């Protein structure tokens, strides 16, 4: 299922949880693992310096510096690298999301793995500030392959995932997310929870629905889940279907908690790319921020459709 995995990391504690999953996954699938650290942001106008991602200071990119960053990464992941023969380390200067997406495309990777940290390096800063790293946002929007975001300790390993939650809004992008969740469940024998939340947030509807209307809509959504997904699952029967109403991200989180979900799969297809504007609006972002388990964002069919 995963032949090539790209792990985008800053090689700091903020990415430790993600690193754990990345190496586990590479080992399990004998996958090629690329550790990529984009360490410096360049200017728009002419300059030979970049702003170092960690120190925030200006530095010159030369081969010494690149080598030094690479050494630092190898030291940081020494233990894991010794155990994983299929991993290689790449470092370069650039705008993080651009270089991650460029590398993913060039190397034709099957999965991008990253933490949900923002530029503020201290762990927890993202959750506290309620802002998902804009890199994560732009990568999940642009990537053609699934993007797995790990922001908290993942106590289980991926092949032990026993409860995978698939949250859908019935969009086209969600079809790809479904395929990914479904294939993963089949492959590792976990249970699939298909979930939809009827959006009752006032921003969305502007009106108050009668209880009977809510119930009608729930029934309708259940039918849709049946038609869109369950009918495609052939003889796979290890699943549950649920539709709740409320604010979507809250419901997804509540549902995942109730079912002991250890992976949430969703589509992240908001067209709003400005992180300042999208940060509170997107269900996926809120789920990533608050979920206790990893979240996979899948928007496109390229790496998940039947081959």
């Amino acid at each position: 299922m995963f032949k090539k995995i790209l792990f985008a990391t800053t090689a700091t504690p903020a990415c430790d949880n993600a690193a754990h999953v990345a190496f586990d996954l590479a080992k399990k699938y004998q996958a090629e693992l690329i550790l990529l650290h984009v360490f410096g942001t360049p200017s728009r106008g002419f300059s030979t310096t970049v702003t170092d991602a960690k120190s925030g200071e200006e530095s010159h990119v030369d081969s010494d510096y690149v080598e030094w960053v690479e050494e630092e990464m190898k030291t940081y992941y020494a233990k894991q690298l010794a155990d994983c023969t299929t991993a290689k380390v790449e470092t370069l200067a650039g705008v993080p999301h651009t270089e991650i997406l460029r590398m993913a495309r060039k190397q034709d990777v099957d999965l991008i793995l990253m933490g949900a940290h923002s530029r503020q390096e201290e762990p927890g800063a993202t959750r506290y500030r309620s802002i998902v790293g804009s890199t994560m946002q732009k990568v999940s929007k642009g990537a053609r392959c699934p993007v797995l975001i790990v922001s908290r300790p993942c106590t289980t390993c991926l092949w032990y995932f026993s409860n995978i939650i698939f949250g859908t809004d019935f969009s086209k992008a969600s079809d790809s997310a479904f395929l990914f969740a479904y294939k993963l469940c089949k492959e590792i024998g976990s249970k699939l929870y298909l979930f939809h939340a009827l959006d009752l947030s006032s921003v969305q509807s502007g009106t108050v629905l009668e209880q009977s209307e809510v119930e009608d809509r729930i029934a309708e959504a259940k039918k849709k889940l049946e038609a869109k997904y369950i009918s495609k699952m052939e003889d796979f029967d290890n699943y549950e279907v649920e539709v709740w109403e409320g604010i979507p991200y809250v419901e997804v989180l509540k549902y995942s908690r109730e079912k002991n979900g250890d992976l949430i799969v969703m589509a992240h297809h908001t067209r709003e790319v400005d992180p300042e504007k999208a940060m509170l609006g997107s269900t996926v972002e809120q789920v990533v921020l608050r979920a206790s388990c990893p979240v996979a964002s899948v928007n496109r069919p390229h790496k998940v459709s039947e081959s």
Partner: protein
Amino acid sequence: MAQGKFCNREKVDTLEQLQALLNDKGGGQYYKEMQDLDVDTDLLWATLQKTLKEKSRIKAWLEICAHCGMCSDSCFLYLANNKDPEQVPSYKIQSTLGQLYKRKGKVDNAFMQMCMDTAWSKCTCCNRCGMYCPFGIDMGIMFSYLRGLCFQQGFVPWEMKIGSGMHRVFRAQMDVTTEDWVETCEWMAEEYEEDWPGLKIPIEKVGADIMYTVNAREPKHYPEDLAEAAILFHLAGEDWTVPEEGWEETSLAMFAGDWEACKMQVQSVYDAMERLKPKRMVVTECGHAYRATVIEGPYWCGLKTGQPPVESLHYVEWVAEVLRNGKLKIDPAKKIKEPVTLQDSCNYIRNAGLAEYTREIMSYIAEDFREMSPNKDHNFCCGGGGGFNGIGRYRKQRNAGLKVKRDQILQTGAKLVIAPCHNCWDAIRDLEEVFEVGIRWSFLKPLLVEMVEVPEHLKPQEEEV
């Protein structure tokens, strides 16, 4: 030591040289070597004589300067540095180029270093002083010439030597190969085609209406800029293309005074024009790129018409045109409501007269447009032009110079600055970093993509929900 390993009169023509130079962090060894660099005074004098002939304009300029000081207040660096007399443009050029000529090129290492520091840290070649001189003496032009003399002698800031080397090796200001470029175009078309059905970036199409050229920073680090350009051409229904080679318009060689590389670079663009025979060429939101390729380039390449091989437009000219003829329409509800100001890039406003095009654009997209004062042809340099932004040795001087632009912006009361030029964009970003005055800045493209009306047939197909 006459010639250093890095600091010398050699040109950087190979990737190995370039890499070695880059690895000399911050030019540490380079500037050390510069202390011992000898001056080829014969070459210097021979070169001066070739240009400063009888009836040449530079010779006349140097001789007729009356030291009246009318140019003083025109220079933003003079104003930013507490009206330091040593920052008066006429003094700056007389004490450098003027002396070189008077002494018939017989100068020493210290003098050449002083010339270098003056040419790159006390002048951005914005040419504003030329507008205020009663004799029309253009010190900016002379400083560009002085830079050429300095470059020839090896007295050039480390970053500038790298920049011109990039053009020599890659025909681009950064290490972007033809393969990288084509790859990036394909990638952007792929990434954005879902949101913009039918979006394409046509490469090397012969006979298109528009050939689009860029700044290498776009494919290298900011490819979404390229995608935005493609989206706007797509929405306007333009028949356009990008060349496979000759796509880079900028010229750090011009900033560096590397005349030979200037010609090499711009020739690659003209070759693309000859090859693809487009009706017109449009260049991205970059100031010096336009000056190099459209204004100066024809002379570098010896084109008798003084014009590039095909009609060439700056991006703002194209935007004004399509907003005027309705190929692109702004959604009235999405116009910029907040106060917004505009940075006039010296290179295509003062030096090419495009001020009214940007005003026309503002009239379509902004409800509360506020002019800086002074503006248009009289606007001050952003503070980072002519390579100033990128030279580590002069960072302090650059930051000091940003004050003038900061105050101009603050006076408008606008928090948003539109800066359709890469170097202006950077300088304004940096001045926010240095002074923290709470402003935002943007190119035109991302704003336009948000504001234009998308024709029904170009919208992504509605999803079944």
